[in-house]
């Protein structure tokens, strides 16, 4: 597989797994409008993943389709970051996870929209517009929850403390990132950190919440070493294609 293909799949995996996690929650939100919002946001992430997988399938040039990449690869072959596979737990965990990803993607997509690869740049430019909506949504919720009741505040802080150990991995730059950046195709994730920190600090201040501890950080998703949760997610998500390979609607 070429470097570009692996790079495209990495970003597709992030969006597919997050879309699946959000989809699990539909019909369980605290209000109908929120069910619609989460369904819409999940659909945006799924759309981005679909377009990236379609592109990766073309780049691979073999007979395997986008469906193969999504539904017939094993856990170790998925290169999403660990944050997106973390379970929903409660509404606070969902919104904190989303805030972290939205703030990251709000800086990632505009940067990737400058890619010398026009296909990748086009998908990123589209996603950038959507990420702005997503961030307004998760940011608004975090402020309401953090600055809300004692329980919503405590649950939000617990979610931040639990998920903070997956933050650094978003901004790791590995050999593939460096190669893609040197080629003018990709970005250096480390350079996205300052904008993310700024956005998160401003939001948490307003929400009367505090940042988590940087002491212990988990990583490994980009090399296929995942937390226990991804396998369970794939079991459910991939069941149909595993039982009926090649099935089409």
């Amino acid at each position: 597989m070429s470097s570009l293909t692996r790079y495209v799949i990495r970003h597709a995996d992030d969006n597919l797994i997050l879309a699946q996690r959000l989809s699990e929650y539909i019909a369980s939100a605290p209000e109908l409008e929120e069910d619609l919002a989460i369904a819409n946001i999940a659909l945006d992430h799924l759309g981005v993943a679909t377009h990236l997988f379609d592109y990766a399938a073309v780049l691979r040039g073999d007979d395997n389709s986008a469906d193969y990449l999504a539904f017939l690869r094993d856990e170790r072959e998925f290169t999403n970051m660990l944050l997106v596979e973390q379970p929903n737990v409660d509404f606070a965990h969902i919104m904190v996870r989303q805030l972290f990803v939205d703030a990251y993607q709000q800086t990632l997509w505009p940067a990737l929209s400058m890619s010398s690869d026009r296909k990748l740049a086009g998908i990123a430019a589209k996603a950038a517009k959507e990420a702005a909506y997503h961030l307004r949504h998760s940011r608004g919720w975090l402020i309401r929850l953090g600055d809300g009741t004692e329980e919503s505040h405590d649950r939000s802080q617990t979610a931040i403390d639990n998920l903070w150990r997956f933050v650094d991995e978003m901004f790791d730059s590995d050999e593939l990132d460096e190669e893609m950046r040197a080629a003018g195709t990709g970005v250096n994730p480390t350079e996205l950190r300052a904008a993310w920190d700024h956005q998160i600090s401003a939001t948490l201040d307003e929400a009367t919440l505090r940042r988590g501890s940087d002491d212990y950080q988990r990583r490994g998703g980009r090399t296929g070493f995942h937390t226990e949760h991804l396998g369970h997610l794939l079991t459910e998500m991939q069941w149909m294609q595993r039982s009926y390979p090649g099935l089409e609607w």
Partner: protein
Amino acid sequence: MDAAVISGAGVVTATTELRHALETVVDPEIPVLTIADLGILRDVTEADDGTVVVTITPTYSGCPAMDHLRREIERVLHEHGRERVEVITTFDPPWTTEWMTPEGKHKLDEYGIAPPRGNTATPIVCPRCRGESSRLVSEFGATACKALRVCSVCAEPFDHFKEI
């Protein structure tokens, strides 16, 4: 892509007749709008081997109507005797509500959906009572392209096609 083709108004190429035929394809989510009204239909050309190449740009990354629209485009062209059809999806440049035609905006309004505004400093007008004051209930409505609002004048809920 040819710069002239993507400039707002939609330059009509040599395949005018086919383009007019494709302008009858409607969006399944908002059936009063055609893909031309929405600005989804970007270009219709004919390759040297006679293949009709249609370029479309999705409104949103996850727009569930795209597969349906591709099939509709193929069906219409087949009806016009064109067997070889290629539908290209492009995001470059990304779709914007600025591509929606004035005619499309008018039809949306009559259908009961407040159309996207050219200038977001102007008020969103209630499609039922023309009231210019409303409250945002949710930025995410029944489809990705719409937000849910409630009119402060007539108290009725309505959809607003979001500017993007």
